[in-house]
């Protein structure tokens, strides 16, 4: 097994509230091996996103350590890519300017920048939309733009916070399918936060199931399905039923009751 790229070690976190500290994460530990896809699933409001915020260095855990490549994360982590729930393309820039922005920050020369932006826009199917402003694009296209903006600088680690939650069902499937191919091509380590079991099972190598707040790890379920997986007909994927059932079994006690 490859060395862990990401490690949560006994991480706990509380938020300060007017009525005292509110614990949201309780002693969570798991690792993510390099180049693998991990889905974190849990009931809404359980603190899943908080884990990503820690990896991004936007939040320090109250207790425990969050490590990447063997080093503690102590400042904003600009080695990762973050795909937020809303697309959050900057409305004042065109699509191409948005996608090129991380390359500007990383001092990539203009010629190379233009070339990489054009290539990634073609990869995500947004050829010819570079001069559009975000408000001129549909929700699905904005999401593609948001993904392109992350993939363009080829981060080793990509964090996704319910990236497809706001999309309609068909668009979501198409995006999941594209994402599968794009991420595999880059060989990135991915952590996806979601509350959709089907999505978690179809995309991930391992599903980490969290309980209700304060979140603890309920189970870690390895998903051993052959790739590429058919996201359009999940129930036609051999072994999908069993994988889904094993996640649901752990999850149901947290959702029902």
């Amino acid at each position, binding site marked *: 097994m490859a060395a862990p790229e990401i490690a949560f070690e006994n991480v706990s976190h509380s938020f300060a509230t007017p009525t005292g500290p509110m614990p949201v994460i309780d002693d969570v530990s798991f690792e993510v091996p390099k180049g693998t896809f991990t889905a974190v699933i849990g009931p809404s409001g359980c603190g899943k996103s908080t884990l990503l915020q820690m990896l991004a260095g936007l939040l320090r855990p109250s207790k425990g350590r969050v490590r990447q490549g063997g080093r503690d994360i102590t400042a904003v982590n600009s080695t990762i890519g973050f795909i937020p729930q809303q697309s959050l393309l900057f409305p004042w820039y065109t699509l191409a300017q948005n996608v090129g922005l991380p390359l500007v920050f990383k001092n990539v020369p203009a010629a190379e920048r233009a070339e990489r932006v054009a290539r990634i826009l073609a990869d995500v199917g947004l050829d010819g939309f570079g001069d559009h*402003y975000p408000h001129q694009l549909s929700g699905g296209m904005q999401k593609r733009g948001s993904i392109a903006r992350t993939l363009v600088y080829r981060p080793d680690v990509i964090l996704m916070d319910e990236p497809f939650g706001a999309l309609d069902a068909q668009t979501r499937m198409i995006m999941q399918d594209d994402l599968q191919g794009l991420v595999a091509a880059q060989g990135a380590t991915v952590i996806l936060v979601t509350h959709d079991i089907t999505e978690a099972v179809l995309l991930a190598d391992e599903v980490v199931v969290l309980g209700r707040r304060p979140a603890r790890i309920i189970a870690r379920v390895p998903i051993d399905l052959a790739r590429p997986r058919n996201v359009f007909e999940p129930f036609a994927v051999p072994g999908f039923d069993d994988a889904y059932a094993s996640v649901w079994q752990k999850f149901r006690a947290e959702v029902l009751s």
Partner: protein
Amino acid sequence: MKRLKRIAIGLLPGLVLLAFWEWASGRLIREIYVSRPSAIAVRLYELFATGEIIPHLVVTLQELVLGYIVGVLSGVIVGYWLGRSPRVAAVIEPYVMAFYGIPKIALAPLFIIWFGIGIGSKIALAGIMVFFLTFYNVYTGVRNVDREYANLALIMGAKERQLTRHVYLPAAAPFVLLGMRMAIPYSVIGVIVGEFASSTRGLGLFINQASSTYDPAGVFAGIVILLGFILVANFAAAWAERRLLRWRPQAATPNADI
């Protein structure tokens, strides 16, 4: 053709008003109070033809432009800085708001003591009026920038300067430009009040002198010139807004489908 028609319709109320003014003057109201448009036009022509108004115009224009620039620059800088430093802002904001409440016109005599009766005192007066408007808009604009945009830029590797240039300033631009537009008439107020209070040259002085010699056509001529300044400045501001805020969604722009 359509455009011509629109312009004609737009001019109509103004022309009606002028015609009524011309007719009413000397009939409903004594001309000594309100002058009349034809007399004002003649007076304007004389003022420019003889060059009598030019020195006044140059001085006032200088005061306006410099006061506006000083006010906008300091307003943007202080507003941006306080907007980005919430802890400093929490301490300073009540003081700024207290000063904001002072009628700036009351400062005119003080500024004349400090900066003399030349253009310095007028620049200061216009500058401080413009400052507060710009400051307040920039401050509000920067504070309302969505924190998530900034976080995302940081994760993508933005340095502090890049954060300012690519996130905070463009996000606050609509507020900055609104403040700059609102500040235009205030700079005129500042300059004219300063010139009323004490000056050796300027449109304010010219208007004041015309008024004390019972020359209503002269007073109105001065006001017409000021109106011209404001119209030109507003036009420039609207043009800048259209150019800089092209990215903002217009109600008429339909969303593309996937």
